[in-house]
């Protein structure tokens, strides 16, 4: 009893213990937030730092003589005849032009000519050929062109490849990097902004420096159109029925249960559905944006339905009562009054659903969108129908690049992720702004 006398002035051990526990608990909470923030920051830094390089590209400026004897023996400048000269016919021209450039810049080397030619991308000969076929009049003269440097030379200027790593690499050598450095000092090699990354199609395993996102962006755009055109009306119609009309019965319950379960079904299962139903059963074309869009539509529907229902629910019943009171039918009440008031919420939900669909990868792998596609898909063609031409999609292209051996593709994949994240950030910002601008508190 005597200890109790000073209990209000002196903290007894038990109080101290309890306060310490309180402090600890609080720290755990802060630590949890810290871990989440740290994870996000590390993730973004790691992706951005390894991906920014993809938006810059190293080019070599060359003056390339185009001898008639090699490129157009007939002398008729007929592109059909000239097309017989393959890219292998153009490669030596580029190599000779580079050797000449070395001589002009006063760079001496022990490297054999073949290895010097390897400073140039394999894509360079192809783009020179395309250029010549498009402008046959160039033949006989000299053309000045910026051609792509090989991936490792490009990597050297971006800091990905160093003298030490080149010494261990069978595909390049420190000597080649030294030549590249001297060429850069002579202003022949330049690393600059690379818009081709966003517009060019994919390139083969050997040439990461030429690979771009053009086809993937187009494919993603087509799929988003399909999703928007299908998921928005179906989702809104379903929500209106469930929220405004559905009687409380077994059928409505069944739909409710189905929607909440579909929202949690793993995305890959939708890929199996697409493969079995849309491709094998309905006979739609593999790797087509149409099938991809259909699969993503089914995936986004639950999201859109859930957000639309929330938006409809937030319209106060007094609005409905007022409309019904002046003699509107139930249908008129919904379409003339409730739906317009809920529109901002529906729009926000739709954008968020689209953003989700844009980043989805797994189901698209199963319906063949991993295929290597170099042709830009047309929205409509007679043979393939609407959105039927083979395409890839942004996230699948990323996956595709991670599966390739050349380290240049890791940079491309990270660059593509930056692109994807920028798109998602824009979409989500628009959604947030819309909500802020139009949200009504009742």
């Amino acid at each position, binding site marked *: 009893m005597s200890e109790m006398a000073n209990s209000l002035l002196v903290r007894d051990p038990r109080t101290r213990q309890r306060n310490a526990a309180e402090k600890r608990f609080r720290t755990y909470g802060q630590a949890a937030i810290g871990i*989440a923030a740290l994870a996000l920051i590390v993730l973004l830094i790691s992706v951005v730092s390894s991906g920014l390089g993809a938006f810059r590209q190293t080019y070599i400026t060359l003056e390339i003589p185009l001898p008639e004897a090699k490129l157009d023996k007939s002398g008729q400048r007929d592109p059909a005849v000239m097309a017989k000269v393959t890219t292998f016919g153009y490669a030596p021209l580029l190599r000779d032009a580079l050797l000449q450039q070395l001589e002009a810049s006063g760079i001496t080397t022990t490297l054999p000519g073949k290895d010097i030619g390897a400073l140039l991308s394999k894509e360079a000969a192809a783009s020179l050929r395309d250029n010549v076929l498009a402008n046959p009049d160039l033949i006989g003269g000299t053309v000045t062109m910026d051609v792509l440097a090989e991936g490792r030379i490009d990597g050297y200027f971006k800091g990905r490849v160093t003298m030490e790593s080149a010494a261990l690499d069978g595909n390049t050598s420190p000597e080649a990097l030294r030549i590249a450095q001297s060429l850069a000092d002579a202003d022949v090699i330049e690393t600059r902004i690379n818009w081709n990354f966003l517009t060019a199609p994919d390139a083969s395993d050997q040439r990461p420096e030429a690979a771009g996102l053009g086809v993937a962006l187009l494919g993603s755009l087509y799929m988003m159109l399909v999703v928007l055109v299908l998921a928005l009306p179906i989702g809104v119609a379903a929500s209106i029925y469930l929220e405004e009309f559905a009687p409380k019965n077994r059928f409505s319950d069944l739909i409710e249960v189905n929607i909440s379960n579909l929202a949690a079904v793993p995305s890959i299962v939708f890929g*199996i559905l697409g493969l079995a139903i849309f491709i094998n059963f309905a006979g739609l074309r593999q790797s087509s944006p149409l099938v991809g869009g259909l699969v993503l539509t089914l995936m986004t529907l639950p999201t859109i339905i859930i957000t639309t229902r929330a938006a409809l629910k937030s319209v106060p019943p007094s609005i409905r009562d007022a409309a019904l009171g002046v003699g509107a039918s139930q249908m008129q009440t919904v379409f003339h009054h409730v739906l317009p008031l809920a529109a901002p919420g529906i729009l926000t939900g739709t954008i968020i659903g689209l953003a989700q669909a844009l980043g989805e990868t797994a189901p698209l792998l199963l319906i063949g969108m991993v295929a290597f596609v170099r042709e830009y898909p047309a929205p409509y063609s007679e043979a393939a129908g609407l959105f039927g031409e083979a395409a890839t999609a942004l996230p699948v292209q990323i996956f595709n690049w991670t599966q390739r051996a050349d380290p240049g593709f890791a940079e491309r994949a990270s660059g593509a992720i930056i692109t994807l994240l920028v798109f998602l950030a824009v979409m989500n910002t628009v959604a947030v702004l819309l909500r802020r601008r139009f949200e009504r508190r009742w």
Partner: protein
Amino acid sequence: MWVLDTVFSLPVLVIALAIVGLIVARARANIAAGGDIRTLAALPRAHGINTALSVLVPALASYALLSLIRLIGRQQGTEVLSAGTVFWAVLAIAAIGCLGAILRSSAGFRARLASEAWIRLVLIAASSVAILTTLGIVLSMVFETLQFFRQYDWRDFFLSADWAPNFRGNSALGILPLLWGTLYISFIALVFAVPVGLFAAIYLSEYAGPRMRSVAKPLIEILAGIPTIVYGLFALITVGPVLRDYFAQPLGLGDSASSVMTAGLVMGIMLIPFVSSLSDDAINAVPQAMRDGSSALGATRSETVRQVVIPAALPGIAGAVLLAASRAIGETMIVVLGAGAAARLSLNPFEAMTTITVKIVSQLTGDTDFASPETLVAFALGLTLFTLTLGLNVLALKIVRKYREQYE
């Protein structure tokens, strides 16, 4: 060419018919009104809309139905309906709908009620898409799975610990190593995500001030908005190599960048926002009176949280954990890029293992032959995955629902 022309012109013809019907019916109603619109039971506009819907809805429905019959016929190897039959049948139905509606549009016809009935039908059809999707998922997997079990003993599939597919035949297709990898990775992910997510939710709802909340909440939501392929790449280029160089190799536990730990950790990061937002809902649903009561009895905040709030929110939190587990089991891209492809039954978390989803991807991409068990096994794996996640979801929803009833 004939098929193409059909596909191309049928929608055009039907829509044209609808527009014509709309104009004609409206005109007829106007004539019937004879200048005084009050004699009509419905506005001329409603007559027009009713006619257009009488064309479009039956045409669309019959096209869907006939196409389905055609596809089923083709699946059986017989041409039940030719493309031409479908074309003419749909067009005839559209024309009948158009004509019928035009003829009905007289002064006494309640066209608005008729058109609203059509709209209601459309709304019901749209909401049954959810049922059709579930049906499609189940059917697409059940048939192929049955075919798989005709070629491969189901006991071997469910009970064998050997996974060695071989496209020349004689494969060992036991699900156990895949199931083990799936559960192991999900377990690690949950061990990481549940405490972090739960404490984040507790801190945000019980301790943080409005400013802290306005920063931390969106931050966690950003984690939820990042696509899984990004997490996958993060596992592949950052987390995997770091774990290998600083943990696995120095400890002598393995030298593979892709491992259970890599995939589990990254998946854990992905699940943080999931656990935290669901637990947040559960914690916020606990009535303030219970906290006040606890404080009034002299409990500190953490004691209130531990002894009053958490027990009250426990069913909701359990539901959140179950949903997170179902997410983890079905996750694909992180494990494809971070876990490896070797089917293995091992306890070492730094070894590469594989999961059900990885094998579904690898068995169904590339050249596939839908008669061989090596391809069909993917459907059996998919059905197993679907059943597993569905079970977890139903259980979670049940727990959450039961709990909600207590406070409302």
